[in-house]
């Protein structure tokens, strides 16, 4: 009796740990999306939904790099990240530069970002929705087992690369001149400008970094979840993670993303909630955060905005 109970408990624990692994892997992708999203909020104070356009475009760009140039995973990742950064600079120039120089209401940034997002998604739909595209196989081993736990290669890689990218980002923000300038701009744009810092250059740099993160996420989304024009819809996950973590707070967005990933996996596993009601619960959590704690989890944990 005791032995069977012990086995049952062990089975439950194994399952829970496996779910935690799956949740953290999912959180890794959400984190790169959320950070790209949060960075722009941080300096321009609006929710940049054009980031969804970056996600879907880079997912396709990565595919074409890998298939046309025959590049390996790492080269594809670097090139996709770079193109993501360049695309984000272009988006900033077309969608936000004039608005910023005219000092318009923030609402217009938001409208512009939604418009650009729809424009990019429709462009992808028109150009690529007639066929299926899938990334070439980068890794021979799709999954591996350690003890009783199953690890999916791309998931783990995604988690590791997301973490490395986030560490590098933190280093750039904290230790480099451009990083310090971005943080200064996020706190007070007028003073930063008065101090002789070229605001436009900092904004471009921020968009570039955000685009690189978008490129990394886009490529991973494409590899793991196939390519389709609505892939950019995953921006919702980044948005929810940002709300949970605290809008515009990069560390908060990372925490929010991991919480969201783990929460989703555990909710799907609960029989009476399942996959159908998981988004309902997620959005309820988001509303609770907005009403009760609009500054998000990181509101007290992280004092700085970046």
């Amino acid at each position, binding site marked *: 009796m005791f032995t069977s109970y012990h086995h049952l408990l062990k089975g439950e624990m194994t399952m829970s740990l496996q779910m935690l692994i799956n949740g953290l892997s999912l959180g890794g992708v959400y984190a790169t999306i959320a950070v790209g999203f949060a960075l722009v909020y941080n300096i321009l104070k609006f929710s940049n939904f054009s980031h969804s356009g970056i996600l879907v475009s880079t997912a396709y760009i990565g595919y074409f790099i890998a298939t046309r140039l025959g590049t390996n995973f790492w080269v594809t990742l670097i090139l996709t990240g770079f193109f993501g950064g360049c695309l984000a600079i272009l988006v900033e120039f077309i969608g936000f530069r004039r608005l910023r120089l005219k000092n318009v209401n923030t609402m217009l940034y938001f409208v512009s970002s939604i418009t650009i997002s729809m424009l990019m998604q429709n462009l992808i739909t028109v150009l690529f929705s007639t066929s299926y595209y899938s990334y070439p196989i980068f890794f021979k081993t799709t*999954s591996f087992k350690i003890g009783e736990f199953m690890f999916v290669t791309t998931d783990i890689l995604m988690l590791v690369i997301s973490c490395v990218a986030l560490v590098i980002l933190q280093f750039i923000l904290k230790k480099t001149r451009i990083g310090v300038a971005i943080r200064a701009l996020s706190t007070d744009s007028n003073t930063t400008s008065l101090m002789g810092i070229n605001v436009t250059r900092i904004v471009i740099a921020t968009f570039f970094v955000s685009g690189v993160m978008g490129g990394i996420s886009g490529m991973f989304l494409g590899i793991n979840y196939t390519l389709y024009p609505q892939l950019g819809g995953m921006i919702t996950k980044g948005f929810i993670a940002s709300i949970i973590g605290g809008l515009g707070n990069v560390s908060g967005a990372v925490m929010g993303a991991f919480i969201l990933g783990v929460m989703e996996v555990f909710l799907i596993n609960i029989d009476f909630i399942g*996959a*159908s009601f998981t988004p309902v619960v997620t959005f309820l959590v988001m509303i609770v955060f907005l009403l009760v704690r609009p500054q998000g989890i990181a509101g007290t944990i992280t004092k700085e905005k970046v």
Partner: protein
Amino acid sequence: MKKIVTIMLAAVMAISLSACGEKTPTAPVATEIVIGSLQDLSGGSSVSGIAMDRGAKIAVDEINAAGGIDGKLIKYIPYDSKGEPQEALTAYNRLVDQDKAVAVVGPPISNIGLAMTDTAAEKKVPIVGAFIDSRVTMKEDGTPQDYMFLVQPTNEQSGTIQASYLMNELKITKIALFYDKTNAFGVSQVNAFKKYVEANGGEILTEQVFKSGDVDFKTQLSKIKESGAEGIFAPNYPKDNTLYCTQMNQLGMDESIVTMGGLEFAPPFLTTLPDPSIVNNVYFALNVAFDDPKLAAINKLYIDTYEDAKTVDDISVKVYLGYDAIQLIAQSLKGATEITGVAVKEGLEKITEFDALPGKISFSTKSHQPLGLSMVMYSIMGGKNEKIGPYVPVVK
């Protein structure tokens, strides 16, 4: 100058006189028959929509080349429904009100079909489509949706055949369900499947669902693995099937658990995967056999016409459905005294034993669903399609 004016006046008079000689024009006689089409030419299920559209175009070209329907040529107008019922409704209204279509080729999307029934009844222009959910063509009271017609086997037929094959031929009784809860295509087949399994001594161990747009199924699949199921019924769309197969393989479940997959596992599904060899132990039922000599001509024409098709494996079954939809509409109008939606509807109801690509089609007057279509079982092992043969469900 006077000369020029005189010549001009003479010319004007000559034109006026010649005009006087013309007869008063009579009411215009229709020289062409407009048939519309609502397909997802973009969006998530565009591969199916484009295939259906191409099949319809092949049929239109064939009929027009042979002189049209009683001498009248078909004008085919396709619109993009983008996977959205609202887009489909708007396009249908445009086809009927503006383009004066007398029949419409419907999409292979049950959700869209369900949204069209009332409008089609109101506008009286029939939609002939591949929406598998039987509610699209038959009302709850057992009478037909007057202006909706189906050209392939229904959800009940498909679900029952697949349940029977799994239980009686593969001897699997411990079964899990995995389907998109927001998609009538999957839900309707699952209901028929479950009914058969429960009535024949099988056991549904777990029912795992997802919703349109979800991309990570690993939690649901892990639960299925944990449940001890030996077979999974997964009647989902191609994009979901791609993710399903990839994640089944990642979790090491493709070798040990059988998947009864639904007709969206049919070609060109395997060609959409970077590594088809990850697809194992999958079975599905289809209403045609790809090696049927009847399909040879259309297959060749398709491969010659469309660059993206190299072999038969690149041809979707939806091509045949689009082709048959047009042929059936054309047949309904042969000998008709008037070219209207009502005439098409009445003509379709009278069709008996029409020689369609998958077999002889007659429409049931009770359901507007085809009678007498059998299904062929296929399997996928190591990324290769294998035809098993026609299968009739075992009724105990």
